[in-house]
């Protein structure tokens, strides 16, 4: 009986992870893109206040917190749809995959937005952010360093591959961690040997 249960856990193939990772990843990728866009246009249309709590900063915090929960939810979905029994390592894979899909989805949506809908979005958001930095109460040297870094980043351009290379590891790792918590909360305990 125990052997059968263990076989069920071991028989999970890579393809079994995909539906949960894809559904949750796509939803969270879309939501994070929409939130980023919403706050982005708020930043573009707002007068520079010099406040650190600018719309774009809120966007970063909200998107970070929101997308981190995706790993946990992917495990929840997996336990509902595929198998109640999921090992810690399998949860980690699922979480990382979910994070990777979020990064891929948001990058492609952003590229679509910039290429098709609003080609000047990046420049507008950069101008608005720089205008806000310029009226911030901080040493001039810090302001200059921030603005210079932003300009360099934009001038250098960011290919889709570079964005993915940069976006996937951190998003994947954060979701991996929350997926581990998901395994603890939603999965049936499986005896493992370490």
């Amino acid at each position, binding site marked *: 009986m125990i052997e059968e249960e263990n076989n069920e856990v071991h028989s999970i193939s890579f393809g079994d992870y995909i539906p949960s990772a894809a559904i949750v990843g796509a939803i969270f990728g879309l939501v994070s893109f929409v939130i980023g866009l919403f706050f982005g246009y708020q930043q573009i249309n707002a007068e520079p206040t010099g406040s*650190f709590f600018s719309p774009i900063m809120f966007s*970063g915090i909200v998107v970070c917190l929101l997308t981190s929960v995706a790993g946990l939810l992917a495990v929840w979905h997996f336990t509902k749809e595929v198998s109640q029994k999921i090992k810690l390592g399998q949860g980690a894979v699922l979480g990382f995959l979910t994070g990777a899909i979020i990064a891929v989805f948001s990058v492609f949506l952003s590229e679509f937005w910039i290429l098709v809908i609003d080609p000047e979005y990046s420049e507008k958001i950069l101008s608005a952010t720089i205008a806000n930095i310029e009226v911030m109460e901080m040493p001039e040297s810090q302001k200059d360093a921030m603005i210079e870094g932003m300009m360099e980043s934009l001038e250098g351009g960011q290919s889709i591959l570079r964005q993915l290379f940069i976006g996937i590891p951190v*998003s994947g790792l954060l979701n991996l961690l929350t997926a581990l*918590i998901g395994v603890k909360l939603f999965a049936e305990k499986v005896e493992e040997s370490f």
Partner: protein
Amino acid sequence: MLVALCFLVLFSLGGGIWGAQSTIGHWTGELFQGICHQNPMRSYYVNDLQMAVNSRCFGVFIGLLIGWISIPLMLRAKVKKNLLLWFLLLAVIVQIIDFAGNLIQIWENSNLTRLILGGWLGFATTSSVYDLFQTNN
């Protein structure tokens, strides 16, 4: 996982240890720009350059690493399973209270308080799963 967390902490130190002229625009800065506001007034500095994440995020990363390293110790100490989940929940609530209190100017948090509270959250996150490493043997 341990290696990934070590790299996370290492890269979060920013461009200062890589001889960059600025962290913003450097690959370390780009790595974390999607998850951290990278406010120079709220960051620590390494070699006169701001780190790639602010003090709270750096605290979270350090906490994640320490929590992960502590798992064997917690297994030996046989810490109550659900205690750490409550510890995590409390850490989340305290972050929200701290952020909100600062936002509506009831108090002003500092780099040190953000580092400590972030560290608490990170530690609670990784340590909360320690019991999944427990075997019957």
